[in-house]
């Protein structure tokens, strides 16, 4: 038979679960979970009575509080004066400190799972997109340029790099490869020589041949990109760590920021995904596949709102009533930072927002914490803990 105290805790836990699920709790005693508890325990009426009995509630007036505070201030000031004359801290105080801290550790250790994601961060620091030519030359893409590589003309049009192949190249068996590196807070596009347009999100990298020669068109992606693949006779393949995506015409989004999984969302056309040891899985439009590259398992979701996953392409964080976790994911990717929180704690929070991407992460966090009653605590450089109040 459960003790009165653990029973009380159970009831409160059930109530908290209901509240977090957003249930209407007006008639809480009739909820199955609570009802079950009630039927199983004779203390239930007592508990309800004690929760409703607030005869020991005493309203604290603001004046009372202010007075107590100034009393404290006075005492502290006096103590500060005295301390100036004493050099030695008592040993007793530090011992108490250690004991108390142990108590806290015990109290706070709940079984909340922290969501930890590690990112494949680009290894070097740079602040504008950079293209690395086949000869190793690095060109900053913040300036316009016209150059060529392997007989292919390359032009920087400000927000995208355009490759134009001339017909003479088809005898090159091993075309040169270029790589584009995207730093945080940047988006950039590249138009490959077959006309495929790839829009790259912050903290991403793509390696591709200057011209497509041979049986397949193959590119290597790290991070996140939106592909609009041009129709051609040869299949287009996107290789990212752990999986390969074969494109049978057209538009899809690949997100491989999280080093444990790759997320692909198909907007139009058809794509097939394959990992090292699975067969090809085909996606149709508005389907999303999440592939766990650690164990090669995957899941496919239908009727996905694709705008949730391609929102990063806009100049704003523009979301309408989406789960907070989605917005946080976008912010993480854009700024190259990490949020830690227990997924259950923000489960019920939905947000609509329209915020300019062109501002500091701190501003975004400050907006979110005002809007939503959550707080961001900086744990280390680039890592923040999210706490719901």
């Amino acid at each position, binding site marked *: 038979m459960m*003790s009165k*105290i*653990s029973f*009380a*805790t159970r009831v*409160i836990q059930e*109530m908290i679960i*209901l*509240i977090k699920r*957003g249930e209407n*709790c*007006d008639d*809480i005693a009739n909820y199955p979970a609570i009802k079950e508890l009630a039927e199983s325990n004779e203390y239930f009426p007592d508990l*309800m009575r004690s*929760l*409703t009995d*607030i*005869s*020991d*509630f*005493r*309203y*604290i007036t*603001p004046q009372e*509080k202010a007075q*107590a*505070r100034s*009393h*404290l*201030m006075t*005492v*502290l*000031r006096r*103590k*500060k004066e005295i301390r100036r004359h004493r050099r030695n*801290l008592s040993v007793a*105080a*530090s011992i*108490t*400190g250690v004991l*108390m*801290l142990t*108590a*806290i550790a015990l*109290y*706070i250790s709940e079984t909340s799972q922290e969501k930890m994601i590690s990112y494949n961060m680009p290894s070097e620091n740079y602040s504008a997109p950079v293209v690395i030519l086949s000869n190793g030359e690095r060109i900053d893409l913040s300036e316009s340029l016209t150059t060529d590589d392997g007989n292919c003309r390359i032009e920087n049009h400000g927000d995208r790099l355009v490759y134009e192949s001339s017909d003479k190249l088809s005898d090159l068996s091993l075309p040169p490869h270029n790589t584009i590196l995207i730093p945080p807070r940047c988006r950039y596009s590249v138009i490959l020589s077959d006309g495929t347009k790839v829009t790259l999100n912050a903290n991403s990298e793509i390696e591709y041949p200057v011209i497509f020669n041979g049986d397949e068109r193959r590119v290597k992606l790290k991070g996140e990109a939106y592909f609009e693949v041009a129709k051609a006779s040869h299949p287009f393949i996107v290789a990212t760590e752990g999986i390969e995506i074969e494109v049978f015409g057209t538009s899809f989004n690949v997100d491989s920021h999280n080093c444990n999984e790759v997320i692909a969302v198909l907007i139009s056309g058809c794509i097939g995904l394959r990992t090292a040891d699975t067969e090809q899985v085909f996606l149709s439009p508005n389907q999303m596949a999440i592939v766990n590259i650690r164990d090669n398992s995957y899941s496919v979701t239908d009727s996905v709102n694709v705008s949730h996953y391609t929102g990063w392409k806009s100049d704003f964080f523009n979301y309408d009533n989406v789960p907070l976790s989605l917005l946080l994911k976008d912010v993480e990717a854009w700024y190259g930072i990490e949020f830690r929180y227990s997924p259950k704690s923000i489960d019920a929070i939905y947000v609509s927002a329209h915020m300019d991407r062109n501002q500091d992460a701190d501003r975004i966090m400050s907006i979110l914490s005002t809007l939503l*009653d959550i*707080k961001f*605590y*900086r744990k280390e450089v680039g890592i923040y*803990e999210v*706490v719901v*109040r």
Partner: protein
Amino acid sequence: MNLVHRDNELLLEQFNQRDIAAFGEVYTYLYDQLYYFSANLCCGSDLMPEDVVHDIFIKVWSSTDVKFSTLFGIKAYMLTSIRNLLYNHTLRKKHDRKYRQVAYMDDNLFVTQIVESGIKAYLNQELDLLPQECADVLKYHLEGWYTKEIAEKLNISERTVYNRKNEALSILKSRLDKKALTIIVLLCS
């Protein structure tokens, strides 16, 4: 609880450095809940909750090597300290027949008491935001006075007491988020 809008990190840093103004801020922020928590434990003893809260702050002030990494950590530390302080206090007085045997507050009860004190603190804060007459009626009601007594106290009719109480409750309901709503509904029924 609404903290004066300010950089929490800065506040925490200053608190850790035992800055007096920072202590004052945190005191205001935590007072309600710590008070209600102490009040529950102080039942039947000669200690006053306000003194207990005061003493805990002084204690933390003096233990300059105790540093906190979050505001929540400060609250947890203080709640634990209050529990320990009161337990030790009643232990010492065990020989005195006036004091009932107080069992050490186990984790379950600790959690329950924290939730309860948190609710009361929330309620206290919300009451400040109600219009004066409704607030007065509701406060008396929450403190346990009967409608008749409240009517006499405030020199109004029982009908008016009833109306104002309902008005207060409906304002609270519209103001409070889901989290607190259930609890308040339960508490006020």
